[in-house]
């Protein structure tokens, strides 16, 4: 077991806080790793309080608290969030943290409930709509998930991802005619979108339409399948 390296640890924690340091020590993951932060943070707090400035100590303390929350102390976290929300109902990040705490605990129903009431006010929040859509998909509530993604289409009309998702969901509930239209909307602007072309092909098949559109979709798919991107994936 390597001896605890204080300078190293401080740098790692500062990196996670700040993300503007040019290089990070050893091999650090780009994404936030609460377990690592918790380990390093707790050691520093317990043993090295004297060797760092008060300001940094406070920052590390806060960071460690959050990492403890992120690694499993959800009930306490929720209590904290509730206190915070009592003082300020419009604190968006805290609302979202509370919701994600329930998701991490596996209480999807409660998370959905809270997310619904959050979106009642903060209806511009695309991230929240995406999360709710995914939660509904987890519980197989396709109609509700469809609603969420349609809201996203209203919020980001040019975003192909949401159009494709809406198309997929219309197909999932059996409305292939509508799904086909959305897929066509996507391939109109994205000529190389395999997902879109396959969607057109699939819908035509389901609707038993084998006219020009079906042939076009089929030929596009075969063309794209020979292309370098797909070949790389299936090498």
């Amino acid at each position, binding site marked *: 077991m390597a001896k605890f390296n204080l300078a190293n640890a401080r740098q790692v924690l500062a990196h996670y806080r700040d993300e503007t340091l040019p290089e990070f020590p050893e091999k650090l993951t780009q994404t936030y790793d609460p377990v690592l932060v918790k380990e390093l943070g707790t050691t520093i707090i317990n043993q090295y309080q004297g060797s760092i400035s008060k300001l940094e100590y406070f920052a590390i303390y806060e960071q460690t608290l959050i990492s403890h929350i992120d690694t499993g102390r959800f009930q306490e976290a929720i209590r904290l969030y509730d206190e915070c929300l009592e003082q*300020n109902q419009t604190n968006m990040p805290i609302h979202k943290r509370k919701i994600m705490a329930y998701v991490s605990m596996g209480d999807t129903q409660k998370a959905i409930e809270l997310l619904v009431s959050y*979106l009642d006010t903060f209806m511009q929040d695309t991230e929240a709509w995406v999360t709710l859509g995914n939660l509904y998909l987890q519980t*197989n509530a396709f109609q509700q998930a469809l609603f969420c993604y*349609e*809201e996203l289409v209203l919020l980001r009309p040019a975003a192909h991802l949401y159009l494709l998702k809406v198309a997929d969901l*219309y197909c999932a509930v059996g409305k292939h005619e509508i799904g086909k239209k959305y897929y066509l909307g996507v391939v109109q602007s994205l000529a190389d979108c395999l997902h879109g072309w396959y969607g057109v092909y699939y819908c035509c098949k389901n609707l038993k339409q084998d006219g020009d559109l079906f042939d076009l979709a089929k030929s596009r798919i075969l063309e794209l399948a020979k292309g370098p991107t797909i070949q790389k994936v299936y090498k």
Partner: protein
Amino acid sequence: MLVMILVGILRHNGMQLLQSPPKPDIKQLRESACLLRVRTFRSLAGGLAKQAYEGRKEYFVKNMHSYLKNPNAEATNPMADPGQMEGTMEIFKAMLQSGIETQDMDYSKLILAASGSMDMMQMQQMSGSNPMAQPSEAIKTFKSEAEFLELHKYVFRFEDIEDLVLEKYGKKNKKMK
């Protein structure tokens, strides 16, 4: 002259320090968000399928009118929305409680239950007290929005998409490659 300006600034800062920051008002926030949502809906509704459009429009109009009648009414919980909502909700709650896999569920039943009714995601609640500086202005804006919405004409963005795509990729009979 300069002294007067400085005194003015000093007084302004002093007053700022003495006054506590205004408590962020969630109802106010929600109201303005709702208004924005209705406006965006009007301009981007072409992205929705007919049924989705009609459902939302009906919902918005109904709620805007009830808000205009009674601006200080308490927000109704979307979960407790009476009528069509409950049907869908109850189906779902029962299923989730008994742990039945919804994959086994008859999708047509789901569509029947949900079609024409608002999903629990319809969050348009016009309510709450109106602490705006000019409440009459706000009412006027709501009123005009409601009217515009009622008169709005639906055109599906992808109505003629088949022809457009065929033309683009040169497969339409008129335009040979």
